[in-house]
């Protein structure tokens, strides 16, 4: 009855499972965050994400902080399974702690943290036990801006603007049109808000409570949560059933 743990992932209902290892593989996410979007701007990086934690199709948790600082030089934004994000934060905490303990004036910058995360995510994927997240890692070190992303299968890249999940489909086309490398802070925020508004209208898992974080050579700030103004007074939304027989 003992199943060799090196065999491929067993069927969910397998009665042959007795080795604990298989029971710990992530199969599906439970509490998830939706898109995160981020851009480089004149002085550093801007990251935006809403504060929703969905439980399937239920918008259950509305105060989830999905953007966190990492060391002195970076910010991480996560979408996907929230508990896996919390686990990642613990890994990063240990990483930064050990880095600080050298006490030698050197510190891990955003590029190093991004690469470390890539290794972690890819290695977990290879063991068929992924951390079910798409992560954005942005920061500034010695005047150099860095913005990258890595997801649960280990795909990673850097760019001037990145997004996770639905953000890739709805926000990035806007960013491709309207991003430039000399955006001021105000322009950057406005651009991100424009993208977040589209996501709010079109992404079922989006909630209208967001935070925008910034990181520059001087340090980071994560804004207090706030809401976007939305516009629903469209003619087609008034008396929507007027042309449909039998509808209410």
């Amino acid at each position, binding site marked *: 009855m003992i199943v060799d743990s090196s065999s491929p992932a067993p069927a969910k209902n397998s009665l042959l499972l007795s080795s604990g290892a298989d029971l710990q593989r992530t199969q599906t996410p439970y509490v998830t965050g939706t898109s995160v979007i981020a851009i480089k701007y004149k002085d550093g990086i801007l990251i935006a994400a809403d504060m929703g934690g969905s439980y399937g199709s239920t918008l259950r948790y509305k105060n989830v902080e999905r953007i966190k600082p990492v060391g002195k030089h970076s910010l991480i934004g996560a979408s996907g399974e929230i508990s896996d994000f919390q686990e990642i934060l613990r890994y990063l905490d240990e990483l930064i702690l050990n880095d600080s303990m*050298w006490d030698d004036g050197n510190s*891990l910058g955003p590029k*190093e943290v*991004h*690469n470390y995360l890539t*290794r972690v995510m890819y290695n977990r994927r290879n063991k068929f036990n992924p951390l079910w997240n798409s992560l954005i890692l942005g920061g500034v070190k*010695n005047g150099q801006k860095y913005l990258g992303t890595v997801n649960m299968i280990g795909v990673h890249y850097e760019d001037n603007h990145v997004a996770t999940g639905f953000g890739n489909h709805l926000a990035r086309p806007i960013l491709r049109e309207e991003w430039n490398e000399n955006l001021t802070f105000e322009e950057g925020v406005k651009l991100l808000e424009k993208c977040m508004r589209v996501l709010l209208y079109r992404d079922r898992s989006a909630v209208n409570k967001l935070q925008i974080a910034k990181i520059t050579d001087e340090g980071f700030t994560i804004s207090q949560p706030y809401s976007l103004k939305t516009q629903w007074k469209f003619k087609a939304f008034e008396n929507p059933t007027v042309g449909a027989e039998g509808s209410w």
Partner: protein
Amino acid sequence: MFRNQYDTDVTTWSPAGRLFQVEYAMEAVKQGSAAIGLRSKTHVVLASVNKANSELSSHQKKIFKVDDHIGVAIAGLTADGRVLSRYMRSECINYSYSYESKLPVGRLVVQLADKAQVCTQRSWKRPYGVGLLVGGLDESGAHLYYNCPSGNYFEYQAFAMGSRSQAAKTYMERKFETFTESSRENLIKDALFALRETLQGEKLTSSICTVAVVGVDESFHILDKETVQALINEFEIAGEEAPANEAAPQDQGGDAQGGDAQAGAADQGPTDQGVAPMDI
């Protein structure tokens, strides 16, 4: 050093609070052929004397590339040096793999020093019998460190180790203040001069020495024999005089030997080569 009853084990203290085995290991470093290092703000130069056992054999390799931005020169038990170089290479490449960036030199030397310390506190081990001059560049600039068998490490502007290294140290002590702002070429020339000091009058040629450089836009590499010989010719033709940043006067004419031109240091005995062509 005298033999005594406290020097059999590395884990035995002497009544005076010394670990003789560790000190004996440091003797081994002094017996090796000379190796020197010096650094400026932007470059580090390592140079070593490579003596072959006989004309028939090849030279001992004493300078190793550890990574694009770090190199090491060794003196003492070269086998120990080789093993430690492999460790250093391994550490550098593992760091690069995880973090996609260069291992800071300061961290590498601490890891190396901790590794050496272990051997001073285990009854079934012996200290590494090799001194390492680690030269490299990272975000915080150019660095030169000396790691010794005791597990201690220090950062230096310039350093020499191995046999007759005191002569090189004396030369560098006079000139080290100029090193920070030195150009790459002058730094290499100073290295060659310092190396020559350790040769006790023997002629410096590129066949008995090795020179390596690492710099801000220059990966660590060992200079080839032709380049080194060209540099040696360049300064030997100029006589006993040190390069431009020395204020030594040109008009020696009837002055005493070339040895005096080098700021008249009395302990220049070994360099009284008598081959100063300008001594007309």
